[in-house]
């Protein structure tokens, strides 16, 4: 079946270090969304990427969508304690329009 794989599952970084999480889809996507979820909270929408090769930035966050529209990444520069949480990608399948979430990357920041 259609899958969205997200790695790594966990990441511990020192405050100030960079962080990257990757998503790979088994099939071509129409778009991909990124969310952040704090412990005990609900997913909060960060961004949507639609175009092949698209790169978008939000302050210290950089989002990329692969040329084949099957993979994506989120990069955080110089992490801060406020970045703690789980980051999810969610791909909309081009074939049937269904949305499939990756399992998320849990980011821990070491002070």
């Amino acid at each position, binding site marked *: 079946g259609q899958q969205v794989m*997200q790695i790594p599952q966990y990441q511990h970084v020192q405050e100030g270090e960079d962080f990257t999480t990757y998503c790979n889809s088994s099939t071509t996507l129409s778009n991909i*969304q990124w*969310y952040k979820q704090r412990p005990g*909270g*609900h*997913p*909060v*929408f960060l961004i*949507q990427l639609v175009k092949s090769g698209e790169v978008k930035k939000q302050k210290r966050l950089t989002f990329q969508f692969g040329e084949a529209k099957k993979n994506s990444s989120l990069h955080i520069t110089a992490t801060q304690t406020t970045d703690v949480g789980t980051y*999810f990608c*969610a791909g909309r399948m081009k074939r049937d329009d*269904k*949305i*499939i*979430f*990756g*399992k*998320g990357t*849990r980011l821990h920041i070491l002070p």
Partner: protein
Amino acid sequence: NAGVTQTPKFRILKIGQSMTLQCTQDMNHNYMYWYRQDPGMGLKLIYYSVGAGITDKGEVPNGYNVSRSTTEDFPLRLELAAPSQTSVYFCACRQYFGPGTRLTVT
């Protein structure tokens, strides 16, 4: 403008009981979704709706039912609760999520 609201916030059910999780949005948008999230896991789509009167199954629909009689409301029904349905349930309208309902079935 509350966005997406869900009730209740918490609920404990006994095996075999039934209940309805309520979801309401005030964004006047057609697309709504129900997800479940098990501890430490991602979200799995239960059902979704592209407009009033239209619903469709997601990845994990078994044991659940939905209805969409209005644009605003998208309730999720559990008919015969089972321990496997212990989870946190999120309703979403487009990319906006409600606060969730934490359900325990014992």
